[in-house]
């Protein structure tokens, strides 16, 4: 039977950003989901870890966990736990996790990494997502969109 490390995410207390969903999943809900998931994957939860803002900022928590790794895989409730303070997913950290764990799962996003091929596909997707987030929030991009919209409405 495989042993998994579960990672719960402590969402910020402000309004949950997902349209149509009133509340962020609680830690209890997340733990329940991770337990069910690990059982379905023919394993059990060795321990669980709550990611809060402090750990996300430092990321050192992950590295000490990686160096003391005793589990076969890691189950994140959400990719949010892999985000840096600038809201971008930490690709380097993802790479280190992939080296340390045979299996990696993100329940909310229905993602699984069990091979090099899957890792590259998912890391690529995260890279594009990061690029879009950076671009969408930049002042230059906002100006470009405004100017394009004006020129389109004139022609």
């Amino acid at each position, binding site marked *: 039977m495989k042993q998994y490390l579960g990672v719960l995410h402590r969402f910020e207390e402000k309004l949950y950003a997902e349209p149509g969903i009133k509340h962020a999943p609680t830690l209890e809900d997340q733990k329940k989901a991770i337990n069910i998931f690990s059982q379905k994957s023919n394993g059990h939860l060795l321990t669980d870890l709550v990611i809060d803002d402090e750990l996300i900022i430092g990321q050192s928590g992950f590295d000490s966990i990686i160096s003391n790794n005793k589990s076969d895989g890691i189950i994140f409730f959400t990719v949010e736990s892999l985000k840096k303070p600038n809201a971008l997913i930490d690709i380097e950290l993802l790479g280190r996790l992939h080296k340390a764990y045979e299996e990696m799962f993100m329940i909310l*996003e229905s993602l699984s990494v069990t091979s090099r091929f899957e890792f590259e596909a998912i890391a690529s997707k995260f890279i594009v997502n990061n690029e*879009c987030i950076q671009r969408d929030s930049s002042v230059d991009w906002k100006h470009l969109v405004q100017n394009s919209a004006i020129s389109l409405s004139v022609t």
Partner: protein
Amino acid sequence: MNHSFQTDGFEIVQADDLSALTLLREQIRDLSFKLLDKKPSEVDQDLNLLHECFESPQAANEFRLKLTTGVSEQIEIGQLIYEMFKSHLEPLVGFDVLAQKTPNLVFQPPEYPVPTELHRDAPANSPYEVVVWLPFVDCFRTKSMYVLNRQFTQKAIEHYSSHPDDKDGFDEILLDHAELMEVPFGSALIFWSGLFHGSIINKEKESRLSLNIRYKNLFSPLGLKDSLRYFSILKTSPLTNLGLDFQLREQLK
């Protein structure tokens, strides 16, 4: 009347591959009848009279949810529908394509009391998404859905902004300008995510079983809905593959 995607924000288009769509319809009918433990006969009749299998709206909705799960698990629906309507979708979303992970199946039996309320997807979805609304039966009059074109969607938005309490005025725009779509089986309605749309109670004698799914370009701006949760990559161009491979190596150094 013909509509253009650029001008109206929607268009009714025929499938490039009707035989693949016919096969998909049969698969959906077979899945439905397996869930209902019924013996199938003629596919068009089976789906048009699907309401006869249910005694309550709740039972119909439970069936719809099970069918959605079955379709998502057993059929590569995002890929299939994209290929069926490729000549219409590719000019809109390009060669690097994201597809909605789980399509929405809608079952609208006659007199079903819960039609789809008037809404638009964007915002909160990205305004760079296209919705494919694909019926598995002929849809007409109240059996179908309605759309407000770009011009009247904008008029409705402006009316609401300037008169937020004037529901009658808003409804008047809707009544005067919403168009019920006539979409025969073999065609799909493709529409921009920013258009107001919805449905009314189905007053026809037949059921409507339809599916809707969204596509967008991989690099187009994100909406509030988390792209990682709701979309998966359907395809990427050779150039994008090289760029992504390069970035991946750079970032994992």
